[in-house]
């Protein structure tokens, strides 16, 4: 009897080992990789240095991304009202991935994907042949829903911003809501390299004084055009072939504003040699008719507001969508006595 029990135990252990070590295979015979869910993963957009005329936006440790596709595992394109395997009627298949194996080439930062288990509802890459289009928006905190047959991202460029004053441009971090978007159509079995472009614009100002020591109070960037600078917009990813690379307009805005402002910390002083620099973020649309307005206090205690139209050769400067405008050489002129309030 003891021998029989021993044999049964050994057989059970062998079965358990066989089961746990088995590599699950996909119907096409290729191995499916499962890795542990990365608990506590966070995503945020951050500048990470520069290369030539590009700002590097590097992936961060513990980053994760969510990739969508309208094709199910049978290669069938679903619609927003169809039920996907997790029981929802979202209509798009998705899976979450952790990032690993980071490498930088010029201004492009690349990472490999590792599947984060469970956070998936049937996204497929290669099973059905033909082509599949993948979409992704980063960070994962950007709300995604569906509108009609479109995959819609609800993106917010904050109306209230800090300017991250005097933070070196390459070190600006924790920009929690600024999005990157990617889209790629791939043939079955091909390598997929989703390329993420900024879906926001940036304005970096360098400001000094042309009139001795001036204490800065506030700064405002505004536009007289029809465009908005900040607010919430809806990006119908599947309807937009350019994905903001060329500055496509958003389909709808709400709570949008034509001006963005920051307050300087008390005691922020500029003079002819000492500048202050800061960065403001804007919607991914072409912007022109831009004016800056600065409220400041002179050495004699007078508080003033002065403005400057952002023009070159007497023409409004057009700031392209998704770019970073680095505006240097601004020398605040406090004006004559007649400007005193």
């Amino acid at each position, binding site marked *: 009897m003891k021998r029989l029990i021993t044999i049964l135990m050994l057989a059970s252990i062998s079965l358990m080992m066989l089961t746990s070590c088995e590599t699950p295979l996909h119907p096409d015979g290729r191995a499916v990789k499962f890795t542990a869910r990365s608990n506590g993963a966070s995503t945020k957009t951050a500048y990470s240095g520069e290369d030539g005329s590009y700002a590097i936006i590097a992936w961060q440790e513990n980053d994760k991304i969510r990739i969508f596709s309208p094709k199910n595992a049978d290669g069938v394109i679903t619609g927003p009202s169809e039920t996907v395997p997790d029981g929802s009627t979202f209509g798009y298949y998705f899976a979450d991935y952790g990032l690993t194996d980071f490498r930088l080439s010029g201004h492009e930062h690349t*990472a490999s994907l590792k599947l984060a288990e*469970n956070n998936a509802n*049937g996204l497929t890459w*290669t099973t059905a042949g033909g082509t599949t289009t993948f979409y992704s928006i980063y960070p994962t905190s950007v709300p995604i829903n569906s509108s009609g047959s479109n995959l819609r991202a609800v993106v917010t460029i904050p109306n209230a911003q800090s300017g991250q004053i005097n933070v070196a441009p390459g070190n600006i971090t924790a920009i929690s809501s600024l999005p*990157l978007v990617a889209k790629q159509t791939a043939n079955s079995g091909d390598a997929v390299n989703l390329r993420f472009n900024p879906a926001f614009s940036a304005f970096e100002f360098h400001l000094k004084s042309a009139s001795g020591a001036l204490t800065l109070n506030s700064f405002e960037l505004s536009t007289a055009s029809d465009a908005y600078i900040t607010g919430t917009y809806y990006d119908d990813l599947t309807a937009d072939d350019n994905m903001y690379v060329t500055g496509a307009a958003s389909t709808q805005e709400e709570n949008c504003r034509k001006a963005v402002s920051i307050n300087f910390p008390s005691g922020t002083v500029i003079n002819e040699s000492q500048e202050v620099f800061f960065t403001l973020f804007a919607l991914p649309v072409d912007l022109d008719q831009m004016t800056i307005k600065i409220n400041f206090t002179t050495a004699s205690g007078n508080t003033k507001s002065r*403005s400057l139209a952002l023009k070159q050769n007497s023409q409004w400067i057009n700031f392209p969508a998704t770019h*970073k405008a680095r505006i240097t050489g601004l020398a605040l002129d406090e004006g004559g006595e007649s400007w005193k309030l």
Partner: protein
Amino acid sequence: MTQKLRYATPIILREVNLHTEGTLLAGSVVDNSNVTSVGQKIDEYDFSQTTFNHDWENAN
């Protein structure tokens, strides 16, 4: 007389379903998949140059 030979392709792993706690996981094969952040183009505007506007104005 011609003799026909019939071959049958072995059916291996044709019907494999992947389940975990009743939820179908993604049939994801990610071996060759990467994500690349392409960076952001920087345009320089040097307002110390004479072509740029220097006419500061009073503002409300």
